[in-house]
């Protein structure tokens, strides 16, 4: 008798099991990786759906756009301050001796196909990246998502904000144009101003006196390799903690401290989040196509004896420029040394205070509220008036300082004198937070007192009777109102451990899913 078994198509198919050839492939993978259990758990993970949780995704996806466009730019940009003669399509630079960094950036914009789009997408994505981080951080702050067990994630996120701001500054200084070069000079002077070690720090970072020839190549390595590597590492840690601790959620129907209500990772969340990735990339591309940003050819190459009026740093550095403008000229120098307080305080100490305050905030709040419990439910900002008011006040100061970085533009626009704008800003920097705090406090308390405040209200139907009397009745609720939420269910197919197998002999518990 022959050992061969005749296999028909149908019997072959049946032999594969209920999930066909794909199931066989997954089985083979599981033999080698053992990932079926973990993969299943991962796919069942529930993500709460509130719209404010999308803000972090904007940051994440704009970072992805930055990485992708950055790779393109890195293939053409030359990080060198050696002088070359520019030959290209932009007439006012033709034959000019410029640095290779500047020349390669101009070529990227005019000679490389798609280069202008990539450069502009990269720069717009950076502005959006930092903006989204700030907005996301504000959401986390005002809803109290930084509390136990997520203090570490808060610190990681804050570090990423600092790295993102730094990388943005490093990045827009790379083309070595007149506007960003002025920013480099200011950065050099800020380093100089640090008491004791300032001159050494400046000389070490720049390789000598300003401008030197080392700063562009060094900034390039920092901008392209070191800082992005740090950010990628921190983002991975940030997301890992998010998955491990699960996302927070607002309180509401069926939501408790010990569950998560929302959509499962696969397929719903994956679909929505990848759609959002496409939207962020597409939106950045549209901005890069239609809105010009950083036209370095109009600025010309950097020359230490040239300068333009009305220059500011990119918006996320604006608060530093603002406080540098309004700081009075107080300099200590009667003891044989100089502490240029007019620089050291605004540019070194003030941001240090702000960021350290942010790092310390979870601890400060824990000490103040004496609350050591785990929190997986979020606060509505109005329910924590003091935290909301404090955050609003700090934010208002930073926003005011950002506005103060364009004192000359404001004076020009409003036809008032430069001096009056500056004095107003000096006064406002104290008045604005002093006003914001109590006003926000009051608004929160008022909102708390409003019954059903912020909830979707059922409309009233107002009718008039024949005798002229107005009657208001509740409108009939629409049964298929899109936002009418159902009772939360478990994920479709779930697994329970067989009876008697809850604790295996090794003492490791088995998890009920």
């Amino acid at each position, binding site marked *: 008798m022959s050992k061969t078994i005749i296999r028909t198509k149908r019997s072959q198919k049946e032999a594969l099991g209920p999930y066909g050839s794909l199931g066989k492939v997954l089985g083979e993978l599981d033999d080698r990786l053992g990932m079926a259990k973990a993969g299943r758990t991962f796919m069942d993970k529930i993500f709460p*759906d*509130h*719209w*404010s*949780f*999308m*803000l972090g995704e*904007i940051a994440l996806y704009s970072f992805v756009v930055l990485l992708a466009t950055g790779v393109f730019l890195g293939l053409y940009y030359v990080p060198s301050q050696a002088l070359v003669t520019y030959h290209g399509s*932009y*007439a*006012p*630079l*033709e*034959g*000019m001796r410029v640095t290779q960094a500047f020349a390669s950036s101009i070529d990227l*914009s005019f000679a490389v196909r798609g280069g*202008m789009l990539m450069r502009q997408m990269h720069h*717009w994505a950076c*502005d*959006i990246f930092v*903006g*989204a981080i700030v*907005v996301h951080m504000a959401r986390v702050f005002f809803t109290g998502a930084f509390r136990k067990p997520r203090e570490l994630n808060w610190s990681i996120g804050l570090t990423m904000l600092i790295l993102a701001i730094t990388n943005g500054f490093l990045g827009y200084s790379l083309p070595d144009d007149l*506007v960003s070069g002025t920013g480099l000079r200011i950065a050099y002077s800020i380093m100089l101003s640090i008491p004791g070690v300032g001159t050494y720090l400046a000389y070490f970072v720049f390789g000598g006196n300003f401008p030197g020839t080392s700063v562009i190549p060094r900034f390039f390595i920092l901008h392209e390799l070191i800082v992005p590597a740090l950010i990628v590492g921190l983002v991975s840690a940030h997301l890992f903690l998010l998955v491990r601790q699960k996302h927070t959620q*607002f309180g509401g129907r069926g939501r408790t401290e010990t569950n998560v209500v929302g959509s499962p990772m696969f397929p719903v969340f994956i679909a929505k989040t990848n*759609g*959002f990735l496409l*939207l*962020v990339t597409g*939106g950045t591309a549209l*901005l*890069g*196509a*239609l*809105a*010009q*940003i950083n*036209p370095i*050819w*109009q600025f*010309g190459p950097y*020359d230490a004896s*040239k300068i*333009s*009026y*009305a*220059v*500011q740093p990119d*918006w*996320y550095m604006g608060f530093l420029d603002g406080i540098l403008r309004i700081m009075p000229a107080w300099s200590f120098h009667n003891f044989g040394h100089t502490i240029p307080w007019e620089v050291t305080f605004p540019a070194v100490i003030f941001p240090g205070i702000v960021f350290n305050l942010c790092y310390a905030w979870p601890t400060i709040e824990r000490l103040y509220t004496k609350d050591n419990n785990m929190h997986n439910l979020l606060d509505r900002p109005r329910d924590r008036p003091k935290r909301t008011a404090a955050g609003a006040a700090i934010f208002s100061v930073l926003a005011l300082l950002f506005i103060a*970085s364009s004192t000359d*533009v404001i004076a*020009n626009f409003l036809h008032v*004198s*430069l*001096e009056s704008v500056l004095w107003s800003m000096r006064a406002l920097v104290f008045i604005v937070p002093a006003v914001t705090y109590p006003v926000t406090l009051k608004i929160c308390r008022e909102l708390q007192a409003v019954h059903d405040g912020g*909830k*979707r209200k059922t409309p009233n139907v107002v009718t008039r009777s024949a005798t002229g009397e107005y009657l208001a009745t509740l409108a009939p609720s629409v049964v298929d109102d899109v*936002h009418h*939420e159902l009772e939360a269910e478990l994920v479709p197919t779930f697994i329970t451990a067989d009876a008697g197998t809850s604790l295996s002999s090794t003492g490791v518990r088995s998890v009920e899913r």
Partner: protein
Amino acid sequence: MSQFPLRLRSAVLTGLLILTSSLLFFAAGAHADVPLSSPFQTSRANSGTPKSDHVSTDKSGQVTSYGNSAITYNLPPAALQNLGRALYMQNCASCHGIEANGVPPTGTSGTSSNFPNLLGVGPAAIDFWIESGRMPAAEPRDVQSKRKRARFDHTQAMAIASWVNSLHPGLPLVPTVNTTGADVVNGASLFALNCAACHTITGGGDALAAHTYAPSLRNIPGYQVAEAIRTGPGNMPRFTGNLTDAQVRDIVTYVTVNIQHPVNTGGLGLGGLGPVAEGFVGLALGVGFLALAGFWVGERND
């Protein structure tokens, strides 16, 4: 006031009257001798003086034109002087005086540096102020007269310049810039070094100290750029021997070609205001729109 005794009231009023009139008297007296405007002086060749490649004089020996291949300076025609005098008396004498020396006609009160001495400023200065519309001044008390639609056409401006110049000849004469052969690369570099510090690198202008401002360069004809550079109107520095005619021509060409027709291949120029405008667009349009999209993607609380 009506409760106070009549005597006291009249005493106070008389005192105030004496005080005010003595102040006016002092002020009027203080304006008695106004210094001559500082002369246009440079010994450098081809820098806006008759020490140029070519000079022409008329029968009486007065220089009527000079210059080189970059810029030619011309004296306004003498035939226009009568017209100029008439226009001047009607429109300018009330502030600048009937002798154009900044001493207003007797009887007018209040004097200050707003009524400058026009003797010796040169025809180019007068033409600049008139053809850019800054003169006649709409508001003489303004710290800086605004550019507006010119009240006089080119011939009338030349006429006034011709007459005032005839009282006390000055330099420079009215320039005509020849942009052929201009080195726009050199112009870009000189613009960044000399002009961008006030007018910004994109030529948009901005507010300066004490209510003064550097005007936008985006709508100014080339010869006015040259006049402004050479004469230094208002608080603008005067570029005499520090820029040759060839350099001024290069700057004028750069301004009229590249500042006024900027290459904006990246998309909408956003006003050339720099990172401030870009930040607003990035935050409001970029983050704002994407946050709104997130509002659609996600859910809201009940």
